[in-house]
């Protein structure tokens, strides 16, 4: 169905994003619970989610704060997890770059995995979509997801302090990360990046100040990029051979 007005573009984005509410709410809730476990009070957990608005980076920062990692390592690691946002921003620019500055400034805040994934598919399948409708669609994709994430965090933080220590909530965070990794491994290059990062992280854990995380992370990124290049060359070769 073609979109006819700016308003309907917003609501299409809103509807398309609806399934993600089942991801944003439990994840927000979990972040709230773990934040409370780490000693954060409800307004702190709420402010964290509202200001940073990036799940995986928030989990990373929370984990490292509990490990008493130095501030600089916490910031670098969590921002590294968020580097993909720069890629999303770059990839959305051809579609949203001509919007007024205030709209772009607001849109930047709402660049997350879900809004990016939905928008880029929409913009690529309907290239004739006018700018105003693109902007409306993009904001629509965050209409439910953003509130679900922030409210989920606050509720989780409220409940979190009542969960008994003996339940072993310590291990929830690694498990949450593991659940996130699986679906991210879309190509052999992603798997290579993940595998090299894991292999490097174990010996690198001996490095001081949690530097091992940065070293292993960079090793994984380079491995992923190199694997991608190699795979592209193989594809070219096999096509040339035909």
């Amino acid at each position, binding site marked *: 169905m073609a979109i006819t007005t700016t308003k309907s573009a917003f609501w299409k984005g809103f509807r398309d994003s609806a399934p993600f509410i089942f*991801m944003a709410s439990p994840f927000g809730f979990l972040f709230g619970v773990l934040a409370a476990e*780490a*000693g954060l009070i409800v307004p*702190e957990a709420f*402010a964290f989610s509202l200001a*940073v608005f*990036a799940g*995986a*980076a928030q989990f990373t*920062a929370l984990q490292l*704060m*509990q490990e008493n990692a130095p*501030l600089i390592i*916490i*910031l670098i690691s*969590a*921002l590294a*997890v*968020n*580097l*993909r946002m*720069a*890629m999303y*921003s770059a990839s959305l620019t051809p579609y949203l*770059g001509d919007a007024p*500055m205030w709209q*772009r*400034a607001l*849109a930047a*805040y709402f660049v997350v995995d879900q809004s990016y994934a939905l928008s880029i598919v929409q913009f690529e399948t309907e290239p004739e979509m006018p700018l105003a409708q693109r902007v409306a669609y993009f904001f629509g994709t965050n209409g439910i997801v953003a509130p679900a994430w922030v409210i989920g965090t606050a509720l989780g933080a409220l409940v979190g302090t009542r969960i008994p220590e*003996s*339940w*072993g909530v*310590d*291990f929830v965070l*690694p*498990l*949450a*990360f*593991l*659940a*996130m990794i*699986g*679906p*991210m491994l879309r190509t052999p*290059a992603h798997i290579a990046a*993940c595998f090299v*990062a*894991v292999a490097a*992280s174990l010996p690198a*854990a001996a490095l001081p100040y949690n530097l*091992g*995380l940065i070293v292993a*992370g*960079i*090793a*994984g*990124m380079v491995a*992923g*990029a190199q694997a991608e290049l190699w795979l592209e060359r193989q594809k070219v070769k096999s096509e040339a051979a035909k």
Partner: protein
Amino acid sequence: MSSIPAPLLWTVIIGLALGSYALRFAFIGFMGGRAIPEWLMRHLRYTAVAIIPALVAPLVVWPAPAGGELSLMHFAAAAATFAAGYLTRNVLVGLGTGGLSLLLLYLAA
């Protein structure tokens, strides 16, 4: 579990808020139509799949609840969570499997 000192917490929150916003704004706001270099895009694609596994691997191999010793049960729970997420491509299925694994760990302990 340890409580995080307020000045550290707020520095992290504000630092991450500004940093994350800068990353998101960088291209959409500043770069306009200019393209990001191909080699940089290629590395950015793999940041999350490198950093998160690097963070989680030591937590699984030396789990805090087992006092930092390799624990077969924790390892199995982690493997089940990852496998469920990978095979179904669904974070929630992975998370559900993780919850179930934790419950089993708790009952077994």
